[in-house]
């Protein structure tokens, strides 16, 4: 395709212009097309794939990755990366587990305070925000490269998660009605009109994130930083402040994912969330986010997350071996980036 387009004369309407325009449109829609193709394939090949119940389950599985990927998209658009999100998932789960199981000891009053579910959610979000704030501060104030800063906090947060319980699982996080801290499992398994709370939350977070990215000054500033950081700074964008906000958003999104996972399992395990950051990056990249920064949309990322989710759930339903699932996932990611590069080449012309 590229060769025929490059042969076209630069001036005047080329005969290929119309067809290359159509190709460009197809390339732009590639993730959506991929999603439709993958879904159609499983509808034929996997038993019971196309049912309302299964679509709900897939959305529930996608939601976890989607939260991480939404935050990750913001970060990547500024030209950064956040490797700590998987560890935040583990840490947040452990903090919630600790609060439900053991409460907060008050040594001077010889008592223990048991926070209720909303307070636990608050603590969890604060944890994510705190790690995000540390990431942002390291990157802006101390000029640590995002890859290194978040690699460091990835290890620290995972270590902290393991330290909280000395590596043990907090099982049976149902809380006790007499302490007023019951109800934690509802977050993961509750539904409204048959739709899981996790999915509703994902839709709300995605809509807000898309609105902020597309319609607010903050969103424009995020893209401006990714496009050309110096130009953004010279035109009056508080680059550092925006960057810190972006990592805080990513940390908070990871905290939501961590809450939902431990609520679904009704248990929190310190190793949960391991390598989730890679799935989040994959979803963002599949959705057209450029690792060089400046480009990417929340909508694209959500579709990317669905491509990954539909693939893995569909392959499980078909009974495909885990090893092939990994190979296929890798191939899809690489194919997506190759198509992305083709689109950029055609755009430049």
């Amino acid at each position, binding site marked *: 395709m590229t060769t025929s387009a490059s042969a076209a004369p630069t001036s005047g309407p080329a005969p290929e212009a119309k067809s290359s325009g159509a190709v460009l449109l197809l390339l732009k829609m590639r993730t959506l097309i991929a999603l439709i193709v993958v879904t159609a394939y499983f509808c034929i090949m*996997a*038993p*019971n*794939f196309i*049912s309302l*119940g*299964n679509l709900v*389950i897939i959305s*529930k*599985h996608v939601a976890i990755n989607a939260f991480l990927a939404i935050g990750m998209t913001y970060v990547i658009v500024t030209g950064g990366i956040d490797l700590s999100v998987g560890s935040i998932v583990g840490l947040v789960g452990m903090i919630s587990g600790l609060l439900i199981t053991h409460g907060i000891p008050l040594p001077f009053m010889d008592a223990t305070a048991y926070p209720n579910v909303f307070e636990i959610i608050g603590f969890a979000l604060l944890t994510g925000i705190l790690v995000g704030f540390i990431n942002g501060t390291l990157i802006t104030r101390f000029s640590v490269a995002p890859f290194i800063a978040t690699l460091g906090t990835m290890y620290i947060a995972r270590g902290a998660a*393991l330290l909280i319980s*000395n*590596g*043990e*699982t907090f*099982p*049976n996080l149902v809380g006790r009605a007499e302490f007023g801290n019951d109800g934690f499992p509802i977050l*993961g*398994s509750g539904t409204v009109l048959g739709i899981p709370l996790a999915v509703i939350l994902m839709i709300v977070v995605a809509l807000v994130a898309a609105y902020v990215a597309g319609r607010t000054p903050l969103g424009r500033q995020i893209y401006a930083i990714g496009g050309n950081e110096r130009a953004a700074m010279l035109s009056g964008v508080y680059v550092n402040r925006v960057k810190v906000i972006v990592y805080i958003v990513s940390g908070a999104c990871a905290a939501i994912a961590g809450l939902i*996972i431990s609520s*679904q*399992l*009704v*248990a929190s*395990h*310190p*190793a*949960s*969330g391991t390598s989730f950051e890679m799935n989040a990056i994959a979803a963002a990249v599949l959705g057209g986010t450029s690792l060089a920064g400046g480009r990417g949309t929340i909508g694209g990322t959500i579709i990317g997350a669905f491509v990954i989710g539909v693939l893995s*759930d569909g392959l*499980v*339903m*078909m*009974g495909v*071996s*885990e*090893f092939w699932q990994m190979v296929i996932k890798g191939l899809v990611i690489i194919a997506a980036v190759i198509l992305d590069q083709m689109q950029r080449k055609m755009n430049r012309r």
Partner: protein
Amino acid sequence: MKFTRRSALITMALLASLAAPMVATAADKLMVIITPSHDNPFFKQEAVGAEARAKSLGYKTLVLVHNDDASKQNDLIDTAIARKAAAIILDNAGADATVAALKKAKDAGIPSFLIDREINATGVAVAQIVSNNYQGATLGAEEFVKRMGEKGDYAELVGKESDTNAGIRSKGYHDVIDQYPALKMVTRQSANWSQTEAFAKTESILQANPGIKGIISGNDTMAMGALAALEAAGRKDVIVVGFDGSNDVRDAVKAGKIAATVLQPAHRQAQYAVELADKYLKTKSTGKPEKIAMDCVLITKANAGQLESFAMKGK
């Protein structure tokens, strides 16, 4: 690579310089206990059991984890050599990848005692004490067959497929279950020993095969993940069988949510390894063959009350 080697060397030198005066003055002998990550309570109990027994026999202990990373394990064994350990108690990170590292320890005059997992070589370790995973799996499978009423569709959750025990357990399950033609495996998926993965995969399996009556799982963490998925789907009729004997699953067995699990005597096994090491250090022989298999115990509602931290009470 070069950098890690150097930093490892520096660490070792520091450790050695710290350890040297202590060894000289106290004349205490050091037992190095290396296991996979303690985030699995099974491995934690191994370390706890070995450490307690070693201390009660008058040894100093150093507890390390290799996170199933053969290269990290190699570094840890170097550390043990540098600290002139009297013995190494090891739950290893790979049947083949461990051999060379243990040879190094042997050449340095440090005997190793393996627990839980075998290696593909003899004469390198002094003892290899493993739970009889195959025997345990047949126990679990027999109970599974009984509870299923010898018929119906079921799914299997396999552990990490690169891990020897995942394969041995699966074989033990199938050698029993496959004798009953009315029991039909509709799908077999690896959940890599992980609760989170088992949860998501069981949800998908239930969608594809709503008719399943049972799930047999290669370990307890995956069984807990499957149970969470079954509860989320409101399915109380599905028979779940696990493997390991963790306290979480014990509670679920007591409550009738999980049909059975198989206890691997992790705590006792680790203690036994330490006792053999002590005997070997004193008499230059354990008096036992290198490979020792410890039988597993079936845990059902009837005896779940006796189970605590991978050991049966009163034994």
